[in-house]
């Protein structure tokens, strides 16, 4: 008897959702925002949520898109893949139309399969793992940040084309980040065929002395050293190279492009090259939005705020251009309609990476990083 009651209830509930879902969908555009909003990595996810809220509030204040208001649906995945699948399932079951997120590459990958099955587009502000777009496995995935390997390819191209290097040494700190950068750079140089990789090695992070590796660098007569890793090791390498009067152009990733490096390396930093995200503060929308954020929250916007703002603007622009939330029409709109965002004027390429966002090469001049033109 009880069983039957339960059965009735379930049936009734199902019927209710079936009826209400299309009805609601007609009223609003459901925009999901997923990422870490609690836990260790929350500082990487909360700025995206703020950004989406700002865009949505502004658009709704102007009357919405094509007469429909935008409704925000927030999902917290704590950057954990197992939670990300839950969040994705929940968003899909609640009838989400388009998702901004997720934030971490691992969580994004886990959620993408679910969105793909439901034919829902996800635009990440921060998942930089290269295969997410490049493998072509997820046609529903887009991102407003450049993938990791772009940075390494830029470093490699800069070494061979601008610095005219013939012999390149590649070192890394054996960590995921540093080794990933070094591997991509090595591959790019070998593929390019303009220079030879004469040395490819890991160094011991935290070691007190790197003289052996520096002597080897000298023996191999490398013109350029590409280093994958963070600023403490980079500055140790540089100071010991300078002590031994070994002059080799040094290129590092965005892990050294910051004040921490300038502070520790001091005068050894002079002339060092580093790749880093392009300067986006020159775009007019960027300054306006950041000022609005500061006025509202009383602090500087956090990590990936610009990218998330751009992703939300691009997503809603696509809805407007496509005249609805049809999967194929949205995809076409994202790839064809250029839109003014906080990271510049962007549209997406066939793989889903935003065109026009990416990295630039900087050089330390008089104690500060300056973009190399």
């Amino acid at each position, binding site marked *: 008897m009880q069983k039957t009651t339960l059965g009735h209830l379930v049936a009734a509930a199902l019927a209710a959702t079936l009826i209400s879902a299309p009805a609601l969908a007609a009223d609003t555009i459901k925009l999901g925002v997923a990422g870490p909003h609690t836990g260790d990595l929350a500082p990487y996810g909360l700025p995206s949520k703020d950004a989406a809220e700002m865009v949505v509030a502004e658009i709704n204040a102007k009357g919405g898109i094509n007469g429909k208001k935008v409704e925000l649906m927030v999902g917290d995945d704590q950057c954990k893949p197992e939670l990300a699948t839950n969040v994705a399932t929940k968003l899909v079951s609640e009838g989400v139309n388009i998702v901004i997120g997720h934030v971490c590459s691992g969580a994004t990958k886990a959620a993408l399969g679910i969105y793909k099955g439901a034919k829902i587009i996800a635009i990440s502000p921060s998942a930089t793992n290269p295969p997410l777009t490049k493998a072509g496995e997820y046609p529903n995935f887009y991102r407003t940040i450049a993938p990791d390997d772009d940075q390494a390819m830029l470093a490699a191209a800069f070494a061979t084309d601008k610095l005219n290097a013939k012999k390149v040494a590649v070192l890394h700190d054996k960590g995921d980040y540093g080794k990933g950068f070094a591997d991509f750079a090595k591959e790019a140089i070998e593929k390019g065929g303009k220079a030879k990789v004469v040395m490819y090695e890991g160094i011991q992070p*935290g070691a007190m*002395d790197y*003289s052996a590796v520096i*002597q080897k660098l000298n023996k191999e007569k490398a013109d350029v050293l590409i280093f994958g890793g963070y600023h403490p090791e980079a500055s140790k390498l540089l100071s010991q190279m300078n*002590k031994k009067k070994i002059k080799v152009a040094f290129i590092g990733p965005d892990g050294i492009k910051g004040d921490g490096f300038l502070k520790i390396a001091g005068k050894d930093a002079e002339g060092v090259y580093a790749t880093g995200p392009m300067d986006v503060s020159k775009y007019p929308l960027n300054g306006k939005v950041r000022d609005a954020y500061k006025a509202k929250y009383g602090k500087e916007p956090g990590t990936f705020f610009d990218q998330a703002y751009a992703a939300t603007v691009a997503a809603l622009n696509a809805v407007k251009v496509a005249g609805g939330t049809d999967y194929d029409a949205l995809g076409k709109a994202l790839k064809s309609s250029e839109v003014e965002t906080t990271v510049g004027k962007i549209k997406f390429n066939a793989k889903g990476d935003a065109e026009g966002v990416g990295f630039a090469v900087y050089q330390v001049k008089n104690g500060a990083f300056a973009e190399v033109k």
Partner: protein
Amino acid sequence: MDFEYLFELLCGGVVKGSIYALIALGYTMVYGIIQLINFAHGEIYMVGAFVALIITGILTLSGYSDSGLSVLVLAAVIAVIYAAAYGYTLEKIAYRPLRNAPRLSPLISAIGASIFLMNYVQLVQTPDFLPFPELVPEFEFMEPLSRFVSSVDMVILVVTALTMVALTVLIKYTKIGKAMRATQQDMVMARLVGINVDRVISATFIIGSVLAAIAGVLIASRTGQINSAIGFMAGIKAFTAAVLGGIGNIPGAVLGAMVLGIAETFGAGYISSAYEDVFAFGLLVLILILRPAGLLGKAVKQKV
């Protein structure tokens, strides 16, 4: 065979060895007297470097600057005093109450002290890396050799050699040294003949901490950066060097450190620096299999 490269690597290895030796000397001395592996030695080394950084900061702020050695000497002296106080207090709080406990207890207490000090400095100072000034000036007469051995390297080599000789003399020929050796051989018997064992052990810790602080100041001014975690790796490498040479043996620590430094440098130079630690610890395993007491260690029969 590229002899120039070989010579460069050899110099690099000797310099690296002398860095390890400078830390290992204090390590091995404390072990030699009270058979305690003082895991907090690396942290005293780190504290010494931090104190020196703070002192040079104050000196610079108060407008005192000198390109010569006076800043180095002043910073080192104050770092040494601080470190000695730390060593004395550490022994009193963490090890003395466990004097008669099973041997494992002070060892665990030492690990605890090490973690405590590391986190303490991280909290009251900063977890970030800080730049450390080059306190050792560039000597002009070292200029032609700078490719092989820099001025700081030379100072470290000389200080290591002097420390080794001074410690040996101290332990072999002075009154306190005699008391140390007596304490090491038999604590109860030493007490019976009128040696104040607690004082001797305190003195041992103070000397060990002084050496750690000197090492901290010199090595930090060579690497040019410090943070609260540098003591850990330094401690591990110094410990390895001490065991390699025969722990408790003063010249053994220097020999062990040299072997370790040269093995790492040659391994990195001729094979790959990615495996630097593999060479270091592989060598340790090999030597301990062939000579369980270390290179210069004496095999001591366990009294049962």
